[in-house]
């Protein structure tokens, strides 16, 4: 089933079974994060290219750490120094990267479809670390792992996603993933970032333009980062966003008691989220980061195919 998954380009084409399998595979790697010695030799001798054509700190470090903890070497390509700036086409860059004979390419790129583009032109597994406005599949997997751990299951979840949904690849991946498990998904944000088409993206999606209504009955609330540049085309005063959509303690109290708060980061305290909520007991933000490592280790392990089964890995850190 999943052994045949050659790349991870998007959540949309995956089945619920494949997703559950992936999350199960992440379990032993979650345990490894708690060991004093976290480094395995599973992918020793393997190399992973981290091709980040778009500025990223968290995701790049997460993938880099995941690879390192599996014993793999990484080769990093960063936006600032990339030859793309010098006019080289993605096609040429992809071929150059492939010529370095890596065992996997992790790519982040500002163009939607870039990961698929590269996957069609190289002979190694490709992991999409975020492509334009399209998808950010590992983020959705780590979110799902976090929710599943806290709640016991993903089935029939009531989730509210707040923010600029139209321009969010995190939202798209999460919508596709959670919908496959029968979630009731409420999207909430300024109306121009919430086109009607979103309701047809996956089953169980509805829109709401009032945050109080959107949060009613939510078991999970996901606040998205609002990119400042989006506020300027056309101009939406930041205070307007804060007034209508900021996730505050008062608003969160309208959700189900103990509702989980997720944020994909980077977070701007005081803008899309009130500091008290970001740091509160319901916040899962740091767990998300740790789970990101586990999910990415599991994926690298599966796609590159290291020595030994995942069961062995659970003990490897002992």
């Amino acid at each position, binding site marked *: 089933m999943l052994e045949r998954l050659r790349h991870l380009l998007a959540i949309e084409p995956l089945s619920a079974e494949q997703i559950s399998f992936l999350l199960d595979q992440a379990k032993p790697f979650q345990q490894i994060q708690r060991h004093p010695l976290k480094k395995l030799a599973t992918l020793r001798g393997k190399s992973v290219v981290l091709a980040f054509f778009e500025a990223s700190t968290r995701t790049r470090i997460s993938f880099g750490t995941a690879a390192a903890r599996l014993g793999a070497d990484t080769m990093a390509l960063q936006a600032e120094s990339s030859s793309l700036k010098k006019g080289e086409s993605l096609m040429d860059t992809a071929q150059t990267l492939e010529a370095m004979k890596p065992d996997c390419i992790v790519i982040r790129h*500002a*163009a*939607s479809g870039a990961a698929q583009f590269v996957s069609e032109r190289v002979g190694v597994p490709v992991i999409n670390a975020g492509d334009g406005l399209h998808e950010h599949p590992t983020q959705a997997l780590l979110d799902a792992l976090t929710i599943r751990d806290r709640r016991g299951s993903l089935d029939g979840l009531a989730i509210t996603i707040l923010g600029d949904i139209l321009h969010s690849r995190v939202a*798209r991946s999460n919508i596709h993933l959670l919908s496959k498990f029968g979630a009731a998904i409420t999207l909430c944000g300024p109306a121009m970032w919430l086109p009607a088409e979103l309701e047809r993206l996956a089953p169980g999606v509805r829109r709401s333009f009032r945050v109080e209504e959107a949060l009613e009955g939510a078991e999970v609330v996901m606040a998205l980062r609002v990119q400042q540049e989006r506020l300027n085309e056309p101009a939406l005063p930041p205070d307007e966003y804060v007034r209508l959509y900021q996730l505050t303690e008062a608003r969160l109290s309208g959700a189900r008691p103990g509702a989980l708060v997720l944020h994909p980061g980077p977070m701007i305290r005081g803008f899309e989220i009130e500091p008290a909520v970001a740091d509160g007991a319901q916040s899962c933000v740091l767990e998300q980061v740790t789970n990101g490592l586990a999910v990415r280790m599991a994926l690298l392990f599966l796609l590159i195919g290291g020595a030994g089964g995942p069961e062995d890995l659970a003990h490897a850190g002992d």
Partner: protein
Amino acid sequence: MLVIRKGRVIDPASKTDAAMDVLIDGERIAALGAEARAADAEIVDATGWIVAPGFIDLHCHLREPGDEASETIETGTRAAACGGFAAVCPMPNTRPVNDNASMTRAIVERAAAAGRVRVWPIGAVSAGSGGEGLAEIAGMKEAGIVAVSDDGHPVATAKLLRQAMEYCRPLGLPVIDHCEEPSLFAGAVMREGLPSTRLGLAGMPAAAESIAVSRDVQIAGLTGGRLHIAHLSSRASLELVREAKKRGWAVTCEVTPHHFTLTDEEVGYDSRYKVNPPLASPEDRDALVDGLADGSVDAIATDHAPHERAKKDVEFDRAAFGMTGFETALGLALERLYHPGRISLIRLVELFTTGPAGVLGIGRRIAPGEAADLTLFSLHHQWTFRSKHSASRSRNTPFDGRSFRGGPVMTIVGGRIVYRR
């Protein structure tokens, strides 16, 4: 002398649909009839074939001068001949832009030397298609242009369009506009809708086109000039054209084979589907077919837009707009319009001949004394289009590998057979 024997002659101008011979003497048609033959003539047996006036393509890009890596007048007109076109109208967005008489003359001369079919250039509306002052339109008219357009972009302002239409009226030239409201288009790479939302690609709403069409038809009403809407792609735009026609304004429009065939649901991240205007929703695509059937659409035009590989084999966002179109146009028209019974054979021929000719203000018919431009096609032979065998220099078409029922079998320009299947 050349005799086209026993073909089924379809001539929309005279409403002829009859089996007869066509006798060609030199560059002109000499006679028509049951036994229009001459003793020493070369004979083409057209039994089972349709004999139509030479097809005209109102909208194409031959890329010469400036982008010969993608196409030249020679390769482009060779592809046009394979598609059954006897005359093609290249848009002026070459490098440099065709905005003056000497450029037009250079294109005409190059076409006379290397062109396989007739080349009727379209000149720019504004100097350099820059949207400011008018181009040397009268000079270009003398040199051979048949229309003006700033294609690739809309005529920049309502005022410029008004001036161009007033100026072109006594010159007898139509103004062809690529309709697009720039602020709504901004950054779009496909049509806005569920597919663009799903793919995370910037979409252009259908209204970006129809808002511009609305401006344009009102300027047509204001000036009484001839306006032709290029590559119309939405129901809303079509309704505006219908309304303008009802008012008696001189407004015409064309639809491309890809817009009446494909939709935004097929785009994916395959840059061969990236065209401007973008492929529409299924509802709009069906409305275009209705317009082709009911007479609201005047012509089928290919918008043949060749691009060398390097311009297409990039991220979808960065890929050039356009697909090639000459060789698949008739096959698609048969598949989408004729075979399903949406249009009659005579209407099909009209859309490729008298329709586009009418936009240019000329006639197109099969009659003694007329130029011997003929397109012979079959309704039934099975064939598969292979872009690697295309006569065009470029390969950017999603129709590679598509099988067709019927298509061009012979193209005759000025009495000369320029394509034979």
